[in-house]
Each structure stands twice: as structure tokens, then as C-alpha cells.
């Protein structure tokens, strides 16, 4: 009776995974297609991979995507960790409303976040324009740029903004799990608060920081809507390039670059997971 249950449940889970991965598998398969169709198989070839590396538009947007995701992840991880520690140290009455504001970008619809940031940046740029014109007329020493536009900078700010809450949310619980006396003990034993932070708090919350960074990077890579509203016309992520293409025809070069990115991630995750598993096994053996 019980075995039948697990067989059926495994079958159900397998079907769900097939559903999740079938489109991805198709994308990968058709990146090796000799023809330019995504539905008719014309034989194996690596042509699209070759063409891909000569396609300025795609390579540029891949570069933008990776750069903005990596920068946003690093900055958001550092800033989010500090913010989480700050929140942790606050009184509940102060923390509660701040956490609510912190949750807004996560809960809000992407399109609303994107639109609000877009309006905000444009308003700030207009204000800046007025100031810069006045400033440049008033003196001749520094010439300020008068016209600012949406671009890589605004894109990066937007990504950092929606990444930080995820970091805080994965670091926060780790802080709460930490023994409160540890920090006091470290200070009693002569640590400065910086040392206490580095030697006591940081190692304790490291798993939270790592998973927060991973989530942040995932969100950055997966994002389209917020980038679409904040990048303007001068910067384009891979998703935006693809969206521009879907109106006409998407080149199989897109399949090729997706396959490459996907395989990179797959290999990285496999290495990380195998390593973790091995370490766990080692420590389990030592303990046993």
C-alpha cells in the first residue's frame, strides 16, 4: 500500500519536472539545428554557435546582463548583510515598519516597481537638468553634464534595489538563530566590535549570506520587466534583446547562447552540490 503511494507520487513529480524542463530541452536541442526553424529539424550543426560569437548585439547584451547581475549581487549582498545586522539590533517597534518597507519590492508587481522607478529617475533627471544649467551658467570651473538618461547606472540601481530584500530575508533568520551571548562574550574577552563582527557574527551567518547572494543573482538573471523599464535605450540585457526579437523572428543564436549559459550554471551548481555532499559525508564519518 505504502509502496504504491510512493510510486504514484514519484510519477507525479516526474511529470511536473518533465513539464518544467521540456521547453528548456527543446531550446537546447534546436540550438544544434542546421536550419533556422525552431520546429523543423534539419540535421546537426554548430553553425549558430559560430555565428553567435560574431553577433555584436547578442554578445553586448550578454555582457550587460552578466555585468549588471554580478555587480548588483555583490553590492546587494554586502549592503543587505549590513542592513540585516542593523535590523536585527533594532527594537521591534522600529524594525517592524522598516521590514514592511523592505518587503515592498519583493511583494509588489514587477511592472509597478519598474514603472515607479522609471518615473522617479525621469523626475530626478529633470530636476538635475535645471540645476546643472543654472550651475554651469553661474561658474566656469566645473561643467556638469546637463542631460542624464536612463542607462546602465539606473539599471544597476534597480537591480540592487530588488536584490537587497532577498539577501536580508535569508540573512535575518540566521542572525536570530545565533546565540546572543556570543557577541557579548567576544567583547568581554577583549574584541572590538569590528572584531566581534568579523570573527563571531560573520562565520555564524555565512550560510545565509551565500544563499542570499545566490537568490539575488538568480533574480537578476531572471528579471526582464524591471530592466525593461529602467534600462532606457542605451543599455540592453539579454532578455530585452530577445523581447525585441520576438516581434520579428528570434534567431537560433539565442538558443545557442542560452544553452551555453544554462550549461555553465548547471556545471557550477553540480560542483557546489557535490562538494557540499562530500563535506557532509566526511563530517558524518568523523562524527560516527
Amino acid at each position, binding site marked *: 500500500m505504502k509502496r504504491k503511494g510512493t510510486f504514484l507520487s514519484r510519477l507525479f513529480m516526474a511529470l511536473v519536472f518533465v513539464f518544467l524542463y521540456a521547453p528548456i530541452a527543446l531550446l537546447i536541442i534546436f540550438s544544434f539545428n542546421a536550419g533556422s526553424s*525552431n520546429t523543423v529539424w534539419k540535421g546537426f550543426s554548430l553553425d549558430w554557435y559560430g555565428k553567435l560569437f560574431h553577433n555584436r548585439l547578442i554578445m553586448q547584451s550578454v555582457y550587460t546582463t552578466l555585468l549588471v547581475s554580478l555587480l548588483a549581487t555583490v553590492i546587494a549582498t554586502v549592503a543587505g548583510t549590513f*542592513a540585516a545586522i542593523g535590523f536585527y539590533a533594532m527594537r521591534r517597534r522600529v524594525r517592524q515598519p522598516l521590514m514592511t518597507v523592505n518587503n*515592498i519590492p519583493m511583494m509588489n*508587481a514587477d511592472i509597478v516597481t519598474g514603472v*515607479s522607478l522609471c518615473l522617479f529617475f525621469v*523626475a530626478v533627471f529633470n530636476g538635475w537638468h535645471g540645476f546643472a544649467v543654472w550651475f554651469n551658467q553661474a561658474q566656469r570651473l566645473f561643467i556638469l553634464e546637463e542631460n542624464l538618461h536612463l542607462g546602465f547606472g539606473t539599471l544597476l540601481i534597480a537591480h540592487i534595489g530588488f536584490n537587497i530584500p532577498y539577501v536580508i530575508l535569508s540573512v535575518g533568520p540566521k542572525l536570530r538563530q545565533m546565540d546572543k551571548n556570543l557577541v557579548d562574550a567576544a567583547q568581554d574577552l577583549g574584541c572590538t566590535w569590528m572584531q566581534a563582527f568579523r570573527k563571531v557574527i560573520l562565520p555564524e551567518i555565512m550560510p545565509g549570506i551565500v544563499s542570499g547572494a545566490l537568490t539575488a543573482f538568480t533574480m537578476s538573471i531572471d528579471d526582464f*520587466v524591471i530592466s525593461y523599464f529602467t534600462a532606457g535605450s542605451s543599455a540592453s540585457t539579454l532578455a530585452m534583446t530577445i523581447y525585441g526579437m*520576438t516581434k520579428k523572428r528570434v534567431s537560433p543564436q539565442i538558443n545557442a547562447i542560452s544553452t551555453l549559459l*544554462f550549461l555553465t550554471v*548547471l556545471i557550477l551548481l553540480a560542483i557546489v552540490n557535490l562538494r557540499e555532499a562530500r563535506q557532509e559525508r566526511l563530517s558524518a564519518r568523523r562524527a560516527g
Partner: protein
Amino acid sequence: MKHKLSRFAIPYVVWMALFVVAPILLVVVYAFSSANGGFTLANFARMRTYTVVFTRSFKLAIIATAVCLLIGYPVSYMMSREGERFQRVAMVLIMLPMWMNFLLRTYSWMSILENNGLLNQFFQHIGLISLYNQIAARFAADPAAYVPITHFQMIGTPGAVVLGMVYNYLPFMILPIYSVIIKLDASLIEAARDLGASTVQVFRRVILPLSLPGVLSGITMVFVPSVSTFAISKMLGGGTEMLLGDLIEQQFLGGAYNPQLGAAISLVMMVIVVVCMVVMNRFGEGEEQAVML
């Protein structure tokens, strides 16, 4: 010591004021402004012309959320009953598709659902389309005038849009439910069993009520992006299925440039999110982690 550390949050509080609160206030201001800057409620009145879009968005998003729940809850529950190794791999497998940008995954569905796409080719191959034609011709009012179909129309239908939503947002349903179920106190379940509850009773009386916070956050996390999407409806709905997201996008970057109206619709969307958050807070006190992936 503890309160000294709270200074660490100051930069982020400033950041939130600038890049979270100020933009939202700006949306509110825009929503109540006319094109030349005065106060008006006309933007909200104009929304009445788009009732069809509102109803369609809600209908499709509710269906997609329900389907996600029907698939996501059993999957989360089954996953939590497997071995640790299995769970770890399954979690990675659920997160992994997100590394391929959601636009790409949706684009892949386009080539599956197209009129001469892979699914229709498959149906053709197994003879489903000719079988359908035979049956339909027999039951047609005038069999002689029956025009046989060459494909099933899938792309450009509401069903395709729902499929795209379910496909893209299913992980957002599974992850919060799973993370709540996995943290359930095993002794509670044991106690229920010791007191004579059957497996079904244990599930209905113990596991289900306790996993409600996860369910609610899953529902929010699927419903909100579904009701506000614009790329999925454009790609799989073929432009015939305009949703709220499309409406907003058009007011800012599309042809019908009207940021005030766009802001007003965005404000409505924010109210929906706030309602969801309030409901969630009422049920899942302190369940912040459940929102987390």
C-alpha cells in the same frame, strides 16, 4: 553593543526612502494628476473603459493560481516525504529553470504551441487531427460543407496565456509551501497518529492548517505576477489577450502614451498587493521566511 549595531542599517534606510518610498509616492502623485499637473480623479474614471481588461486579467490570474496550487501543493507535500538527498536535488531542479530567463522559456513555448509547432506536428503524426476531423464532420450540421482543420488553435488563446503563467510561476507556489511543510514539527504528526488519526485525518487536521501560511504566500507570489504580466500575454496570447500589464506598459513605453493613467492603474495594482499582504500577515504571523525562496 546591540544597539550600536543598528547603525549598520542607516544607509539602507536612506536607500529605501530614495528608491522604494519616493518612487511609490511619485506614482500616487501621478495617479491623481492631469496631464498639465492639476489634481484630478479623471484617471480613475477612465479606467471604466478598460473593465474588460480588468476582468480578463483577474480571471486568467485566478485560474493560473488555482492550477499552480493544485499542482504545487501535492508536489511540495510529496517532496517533503522523500529522503534528504532527493529533496536537495529536487529543490535545485525547481530553481534551475529560473536561470534561463523567463522570456526564453516563454519563447520556447511559442514554438511548441504554434499552428505548425511541435505539439501540432505531434498531433498530426499520431493521427489525432484527422480523427478529430472525421468525428467533427460526422456531427456537423452539413457534413458536405465541413472544412477540415489542419491544426489545433493553441497559440493566441487564453489557455496558452494561462499555460505560460503556470509554467513560469509554478516554482513560486512550490517553494513557500515546501519550506513551511518541511519545518512542521514532526512530533505533532506523531502525536496525531498516536491519538488514532488516520493518514487522511492527519493531513486534513494537522498538516493542511499548519501549512496555510505557505499556501497563502504561494498564492500571492503566483497571483501578483500573473495579474500584472505583459510579456506572456504578448508572446503567447498573440496580442489578442490584452492584460493589465499590457495596459500599463502601453501608457509608458507603448503607443498610447499616458503616464498618469498608467500610474493610476499601477496604484490599483499596489492596492491589490497590499490587500494580499494584509491577509497574509493576519494568517501567518512571523512567517517571513515563507515568502523566501
